[in-house]
């Protein structure tokens, strides 16, 4: 049962909400309680830009059980326009279409299912633009 954790992460996974340190301006995504740069504890909630570029990626051909029917698929590190980097699956792309530096946008997709009868989990994935 993943309901409680999933619900807790909705602001980040659905709306890309990040924490901007009120002291040094460092952006933490996902949000943290203590700024890793200046150790301050006050943050402003900001919404990240949903566009960026592909920093690097790998193609998954042998996946864990939950994703084994979706292979091959790519997972990459994306740097958003406001400088934040995150790891995400790259959707709607043939592996040969991908290249480092490509412009991408984060879109809202189904990420996983909690078994056949459990909840459906949504969040962001990148697509090439």
């Amino acid at each position, binding site marked *: 049962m993943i309901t409680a954790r999933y619900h807790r992460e*909705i602001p980040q996974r*659905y*709306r890309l909400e990040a924490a901007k340190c009120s002291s040094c301006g460092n952006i933490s995504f996902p949000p943290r309680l203590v700024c890793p740069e200046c150790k301050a504890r006050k943050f402003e909630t900001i919404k990240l830009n949903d566009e960026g570029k592909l920093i690097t990626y790998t193609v998954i051909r042998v996946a864990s059980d939950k994703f084994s*029917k*979706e292979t091959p698929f790519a997972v990459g590190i994306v740097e958003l326009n406001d400088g934040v980097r995150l790891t995400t699956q790259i*959707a*709607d792309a*043939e592996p040969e279409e991908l290249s480092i530096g490509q412009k991408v946008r984060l*879109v*809202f*997709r*189904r*990420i996983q299912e909690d078994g*056949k009868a459990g909840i*459906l989990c*949504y969040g962001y*994935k990148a697509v090439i633009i």
Partner: protein
Amino acid sequence: MVGIVGYGAYVPRYRIKAETIAHQWGMDPEAINRGLQLIEKTVPGQDEDTITISVAAAKNALKRAQINPQEIGAVYIGSESHPYAVKPSGTILIDALGIGPHVHVSSFEFACKAGSEAMYVAYSHVKSGEMKYALGIGADTSQGAPGDALEYSASAGGAAFIMGSEKVLAEILFTNSYTSDTPDFWRREGESYPRHGGRFTGDPAYFKHIMGAANALLEKSNMKPEDFQYAVFHMPNGKFPQEAGKRLGFTKKQLEVGWIVPLMGNTYSGSSPTGLAAILDVAKPNDMIFMVSFGSGAGSDGFIYRVTDELPKVQDRAPKLRDMLDKNKIHLNYGEYAKFRRKIKLNE
């Protein structure tokens, strides 16, 4: 003035050609193309469903409307493929778009006209003065049984419309609904695929309800088909909307912009709404638009819109439907399609 203040559409990147499906089942692709007038249809990605399609379409509507999502007082998603049997699709959409929590949310169902229902109720809320903005969406990842005629058409996509009374893009002048108990197409609880009455889906169902709503709408508005620049009808296949238009007195020219079914398929609740989005992408101020949906069971919702001076200012703020249909496609073979649509029985 009350009407559409923001609109947006979305179709997935994947396609399957009608001839690929025909080859799979030993049918003559030429005969299918002649009969149904379908070239290809959209297929949802493995991580797409009615909710993700609704979110993508609504994001495009918000880009055009440029309003504060917090001011939206109601969100209705019409679909016959809501991912949950119990849990409204709109609850997920509002959190994705930053709407609410002070918002009225509901899932609508009425076969292929659930989207126009959502639009109608959203419009009515604004017209009554109950709220500033309301969002109505029609979206589907339609089901068609393997080998059934529906498999050639059942596709995926949707369109979202924000109703409001300021900076209106297309004013809604008249509406009319026409409904009766007509068992032309249905899906019983727990069944994977819908069933239909074959030829019974034509005259006693589709045409009777489309004509019923359309004729009443023309009478109510005291207008004639030649008064409109564009018309769009529900598109279960290529042939039916053309025939409905012909019977009512509309020309092919009036129908062609919204007639997106040959390249998109039937997006069920998203069908006439996406056709309307294609029209709004190109319409000019003072153009008149005639729209009639159809949902099996059965009923039709009709709308008459008048385009305002505001529309040209927002058309380029979000992707246009024809561009989404014409560009950036990935074609699937039947095996890939069967996997994507979960038609293959797997071990648990």
